[in-house]
């Protein structure tokens, strides 16, 4: 498969993987640590959505499914499947506990991206394209337009019943 198309497909799959798992695990609901609160309110002040801002702040302050996805892709590329996915899940879990987070989002992100990469290898998308794809996916959330990205995340949070009750 053409490399550019592979990277785009991998980016879409990684985006879906980490946004859905993180929203389900409650990242938009409340800031996990005080730093995420600061970042969330900063995004709201610039015209964004508070729930989406908490999501973005939680990504910065603790390894979550986005970290699990990229580290899972890195481990599957360098170590192989399934050992890479399991090692990534364990190390992301340790990192989560060091950052005062229970660890559910990171480990599930790593394990689910391992399954997705294993299936995608049958249609010709190798794991290294998932590494770059995940990087592009995280840049769309954290690196282009924070208020607009937070509004999109807020809409997804509302749809999945995880919108924040704080103001």
């Amino acid at each position, binding site marked *: 498969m053409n490399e550019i198309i592979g990277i785009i497909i991998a980016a879409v799959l990684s985006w879906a993987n980490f946004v859905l798992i993180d929203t*389900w*695990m*409650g990242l938009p609901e*409340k*800031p*996990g*640590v*005080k730093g995420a*609160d600061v970042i969330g309110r900063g995004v709201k002040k610039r015209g964004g959505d508070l729930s989406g801002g908490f999501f973005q702040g939680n990504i910065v302050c603790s390894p979550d499914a986005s970290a699990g996805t990229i580290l899972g892709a890195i481990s*599957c590329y360098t*170590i*192989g*499947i*399934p*050992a*890479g996915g*399991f*090692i990534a*899940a*364990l*190390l992301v*879990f*340790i990192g989560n*506990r*060091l950052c*005062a987070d*229970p*660890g*559910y*989002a990171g*480990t599930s992100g790593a394990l689910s991206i391992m399954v997705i990469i*294993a299936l995608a*290898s049958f249609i010709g998308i*190798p*794991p290294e394209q998932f590494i770059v794809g995940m990087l592009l996916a995280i840049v769309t959330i954290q690196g282009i337009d924070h208020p607009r990205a937070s509004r999109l995340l807020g809409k997804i949070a509302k749809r999945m019943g995880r919108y924040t009750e704080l103001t």
Partner: protein
Amino acid sequence: MIIHVNIVTVLSYILAVLSAIIVGFIVKLPLLPERPIRYSFTISIIFPTTVIALGLSAMVFELGWGGIMVGVITGILSALISKYLLEKILPEPTEPVEGES
């Protein structure tokens, strides 16, 4: 092919998880964390123990020691680690995490 599996490795992973679960029951770890699950720090059989079992087995298999016996021993070790050692090396955060004035 990047997927490195043969029947012995798959069996060893499954046995590692099973022995971790069995030893977890023996040392009386709770089965599920308390609700709402996504915010709970409880160490249970489903959550860190399985992840630790799979991760440690993957590390051990990649370092070269393979086989069913190694998988079972790693599973037993991970259940014991998650019961006795995990609280000490990765303690639950105690300070308040939001709402500071």
